[in-house]
């Protein structure tokens, strides 16, 4: 693919802190290489802002290789931008052309309050995990991995669910700000494996209860989460979560 440089107009959300109302700021990004990642383009813009003595744009990033789930940017109406199955750091500037105007917003959800500019607080996800997204094991030596037989097909499904990086794109993309795809991936990766079975009922009930408590919306099965998920987590996980929750709700003795 041929390399080219471009000039862009950015409309970026600026917000001092969670109590600030926030507004869009229009910035020019000049001489941007098509081979840069979207975050590198932001680095260039921020360098200039710093040189001018202005406040750089705050945005989350960590690994820059698509596995940490930090780079939460809503770009031109799409979570992580126009490419499917990628995070913002994996989005390259060749997705845009010279003269484009790009609107960049933070994840919008009551459960994800803006910390500053494009940075949001996703600790609601941590509290959902704390409510049941784990298995309890006794201390001592780990037992031999081969002593619990695991069906290969189920192991593959569990692995696909475990690919969830907790980035929150599902919440950002959902018109209801629902966290069902995230919760379903976290419930599924354990429900599919024998190690997850002993706590499957309390896990489904507690994680859904925490999800509701955090103020996420409910799922209306539009499929926007699946379309935007950088790890392509399937909607079949949401169906599994529903089955787990129904099973637990109808049979739990508490």
């Amino acid at each position, binding site marked *: 693919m041929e390399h080219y440089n471009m000039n862009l107009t950015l*409309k970026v959300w600026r917000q001092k802190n969670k109590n600030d109302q*926030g507004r*869009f700021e229009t910035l020019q990004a000049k001489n941007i290489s098509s081979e840069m990642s979207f975050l590198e383009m932001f680095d260039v813009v921020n360098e200039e802002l710093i040189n001018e003595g202005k406040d750089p744009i705050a945005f989350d990033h960590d690994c820059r290789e698509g596995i940490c789930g930090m780079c939460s940017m*809503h770009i*031109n*109406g*799409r979570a992580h931008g126009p490419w499917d199955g990628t995070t913002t750091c994996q989005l390259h500037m060749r997705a845009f052309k010279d003269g484009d105007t790009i*609107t960049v*917003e933070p994840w*919008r*959800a*009551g*459960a994800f309050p803006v910390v500053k500019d494009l940075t949001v607080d996703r600790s609601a996800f941590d509290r959902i995990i704390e409510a049941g997204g784990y298995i309890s094991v006794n201390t001592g030596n780990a037992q031999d991995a081969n002593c619990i037989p695991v069906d290969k097909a189920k192991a593959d499904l569990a692995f696909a669910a475990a690919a969830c990086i907790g980035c929150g794109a599902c919440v950002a*993309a959902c*018109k*209801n*700000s*629902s966290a069902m795809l995230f919760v379903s991936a976290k419930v599924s990766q354990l429900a599919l494996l024998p190690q997850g079975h002993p706590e499957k009922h309390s896990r489904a*009930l507690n994680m*859904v*209860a925490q*999800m*509701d408590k955090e*103020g*996420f*919306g*409910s*799922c*209306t*099965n*539009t*499929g*926007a989460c699946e*379309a*935007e998920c950088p790890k392509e987590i399937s*909607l*079949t996980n*949401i*169906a*599994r*979560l*529903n*089955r787990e*929750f*129904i099973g*637990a*709700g109808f049979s*739990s003795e*508490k």
Partner: protein
Amino acid sequence: MKWSQFFNTSIGKKLLVGATGLFLCSFVIVHLAGNFQLLYNDEGKAFNAYAAFMGHNSLIQFIAWGLKIVILLHAFIAIQLTFSNRAARPVKYAVSPGNQTSSWFSRQMAIMGSILFIFIIIHLANFWAKFHYGEMPLRTYPGQEEPLKDLYLVSQETFKTGWLVVLYVIGMIGLSFHLIHGFKSACQTFGLNHKKYNGLLSFIGIWLFGIAIPVGFAIIPVVIYFK
């Protein structure tokens, strides 16, 4: 988790919406089967006898009242969920993805449901209230002793009015768009998502409930209007 807590969770409420929705899906099949008798060329003999049976059989009357409660419950919980879903995003996006990430039908459930609800109220006022509580013309068919309430005649007269036919067709478009997403969505809420059955569920949702049934309903007033 107690039942009261269970049905107060987001999934619990959705289960109620899904269950009532699927029950209403089964109802439209029965209703349409009955309506087709309006197209018989028997001056309404079969239809009026059917209406008299439906209006007097106590089991059917019991289900009919249950049906009204189910419609209200379906609407009430769905409205409640819609409001809490809107509240979950206090600051909206400046740019939205439109149809790039989800189908248009899936995002219009509340609007289509509202159109349908208004339609149902007008529909009940036009026929059900008139049949049970209003003045009805009577008709005695040859070979019968008891006169029957002539609901057939009422429907023929109602659908000679153009705007009522248009309203009916709009109501059925609402039904179509609501069920194109609604049927399959309810299945997903109940955890029914399986490679071997998804094709069949989509087919039933789109072609049977989304197209065949609403078209079947809509044809009848149109035929009456142009007869």
